[in-house]
């Protein structure tokens, strides 16, 4: 292929590339529409590939950065101390041969709700988490791990002692009722005419989703309790003004987690913290728990659930990616092929002239291939700009939506890698090549004598 240049007389030489570009520009509307269609197809490929790459990279970084694992086990019937000891023994056995540090603790985290109809609030539903501990002390472990630190770090105004329960006071509840309270003050946590109901932890998501098809239980008003600690401005609970900490015992009684006759504590949940969960087989551990303690359901491994969700999403994107690639490949190839076939049909005389002038069949074939590939490469250039811009927009929107906790079509980061740029280039060339196969064959079959006589 000659390089375009100038001959000694100063005129531009005609080269294959120049000839092909002139042919494309000759039929502006048809070429433009074909190029636009393919550009959109390839841009779509770039965006999907960018999302797939972004999602993959995100999962990898999640795995790298969030090695810590947290497993929660809840069930409607609280665990007895004996059951807790059984689970501890199973956990010891599971981790016996590994270097992984872990901690298993009983967890008291009960959700209870109230209707809160104050004007001007986004929601008239308030819920509270009662977080606390058993006889061993506080087990929320908010300060122990980096990821929890990021989520829950806040301004600890004060705490007294280790035996306490937290009341989440969100939606300006604190401001409305407790803003003048400090540690040591006595408060009611059932302000005015508001009643509380228990909501089992495992039903919490259903409650938030508006599903009330489960049993709730009224709990007695909690009055005259001493505020023993305050956690302010929690990042983990965005809607929370403050978390108040109260003495445990009467709370446990209220939730039937303390049997004062036998002096026995019960635990609605178990928490297992693991310092490096990268290579753990959670399902095996889950199976061991279920074998050891009947009813150890409510498995809530958020770390793994999040990764599962991401992997599901990645699989979904990959599936769509494959389907769309197939469709856009067919559309592009058929589109270019059709354009080239029309071009060959319309240019029978021209092809006959070229044959008469000494163009070989191979060169005619080369012209058709070059034209089809040029169409796809022009489309590629446009699609690259379009695809990169859309991917960038998608990524920006994703980053903006982070932390809002809202569903969005911008569900993943999107990253256009050099591999995607190269792959889309190869795809464009491949589209052009495949699309030109039949038209090129037809072009070489043009009989120059017939073409010159009859067109």
């Amino acid at each position, binding site marked *: 292929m000659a390089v375009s240049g100038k001959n000694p007389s100063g005129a531009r030489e005609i*080269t*294959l590339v120049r000839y092909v570009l*002139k042919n494309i520009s000759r039929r502006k509307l048809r070429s433009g529409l074909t190029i636009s269609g393919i550009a959109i197809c390839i841009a779509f490929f770039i965006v999907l590939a960018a999302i797939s790459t972004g999602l993959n990279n995100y999962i990898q970084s999640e795995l790298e950065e969030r090695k810590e694992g947290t497993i929660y086990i809840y069930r409607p019937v609280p665990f007895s101390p004996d059951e807790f000891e059984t689970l501890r023994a199973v956990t010891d056995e599971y981790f016996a041969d590994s270097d992984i540090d872990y901690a298993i603790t009983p967890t008291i985290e009960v959700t209870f709700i109230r209707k809160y109809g104050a004007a001007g609030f986004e929601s008239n539903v308030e819920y509270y988490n009662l977080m606390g501990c058993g006889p061993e002390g506080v087990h929320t472990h908010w300060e122990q791990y980096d990821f929890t630190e990021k989520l829950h770090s806040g301004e600890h105004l004060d705490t007294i002692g280790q035996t306490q329960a937290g009341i989440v006071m969100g939606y300006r509840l604190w401001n409305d009722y407790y803003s003048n309270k400090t540690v040591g003050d006595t408060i009611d946590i059932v302000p005015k005419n508001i009643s509380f109901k228990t909501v089992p932890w495992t039903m919490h998501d259903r409650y938030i989703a508006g599903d009330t098809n489960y049993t709730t239980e009224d709990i007695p008003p909690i009055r005259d309790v001493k505020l023993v600690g305050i956690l302010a401005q929690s990042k983990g609970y965005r809607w929370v003004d403050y978390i108040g900490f109260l003495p445990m015992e009467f709370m446990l009684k209220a939730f039937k987690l303390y049997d004062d006759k036998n002096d026995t504590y019960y635990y609605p949940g178990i928490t297992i913290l693991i310092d490096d969960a990268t290579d753990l087989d959670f399902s095996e551990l889950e199976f061991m728990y279920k074998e050891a303690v009947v009813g150890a359901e409510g498995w809530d491994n958020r770390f793994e659930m999040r990764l599962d969700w991401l992997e599901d999403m990645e699989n979904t994107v990959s599936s769509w990616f494959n389907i769309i690639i197939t469709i856009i490949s067919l559309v592009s190839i058929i589109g270019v092929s059709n354009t080239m076939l029309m071009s060959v049909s319309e240019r029978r005389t021209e092809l006959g002239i070229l044959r008469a002038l*000494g*163009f070989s069949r191979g060169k005619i074939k080369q012209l058709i291939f070059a034209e089809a590939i040029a169409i796809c490469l022009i489309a590629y250039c446009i699609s690259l700009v379009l695809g990169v811009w859309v991917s960038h927009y998608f990524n920006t929107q994703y980053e903006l939506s982070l932390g809002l906790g809202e569903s969005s079509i911008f569900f993943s980061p999107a990253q256009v890698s050099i591999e995607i740029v190269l792959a889309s280039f190869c795809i464009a060339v491949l589209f052009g090549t495949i699309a030109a196969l039949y038209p090129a064959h037809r072009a070489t079959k043009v009989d120059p004598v017939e073409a*010159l*006589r009859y067109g």
Partner: protein
Amino acid sequence: MADKIPLIKVSNVSKSFALAKRARSPLTVLHEINLEVRTGEFLAIVGPSGAGKSTLLYIMGALDRPSSGTVYFNGENISKMKDRELTNLRLRHVGFVFQNYNLIPNLNALENIAVGQIMDPSLGRNGKGASEVLEHVGLAERSDHLPAQLSGGEQQRVAIARALFASPSVILADEPTGNLDTKAGEAIIKLFSKLNKKLGTAIVLVTHNTNLAKYAGRKVEMVDGRI
């Protein structure tokens, strides 16, 4: 010695076409034609429409193959040549000029002339450049014009320049004045005559106009596929 070998020798050439699959006998358009074209000669083949002039011209120019007989080009039998060899022969040694000019519409005059460089970038390098050839046909100032911007006579001049570009041994012109008025037609034939004398390129002119044949050095008449 070389001058004694005809540039093109057509020996007992016949050409038949199968009209349809069920047709009993094919249509024979050339009947055992014998003809020689000498180097530097200006030959006119005259005859009415349907006489087989164009078919003969295409066979002489290695664009078509005879059904029987032999065609020699510079003493070489081209009847049995492979397609690739015939293509090369047309590229370097034969120039075609057609009745409909057959210029490529999206290329300007200069690009039309040099279009063979797409096939072989070295084409025309040893001889006249495209601009010089355009000067020969008197269109130097129209080099950037597209065919649609040229008159019929001018388009035909560009076609002649294109035929001359590779410095061929022969130009085969198929009714080159067929679409031109008398004056423009005569101008084209005079141009052929001038180029023939100036450059020494052999010219075979196919025409049904006997008046134009007078410019040729030799004239043969064809009727019903026979000379």
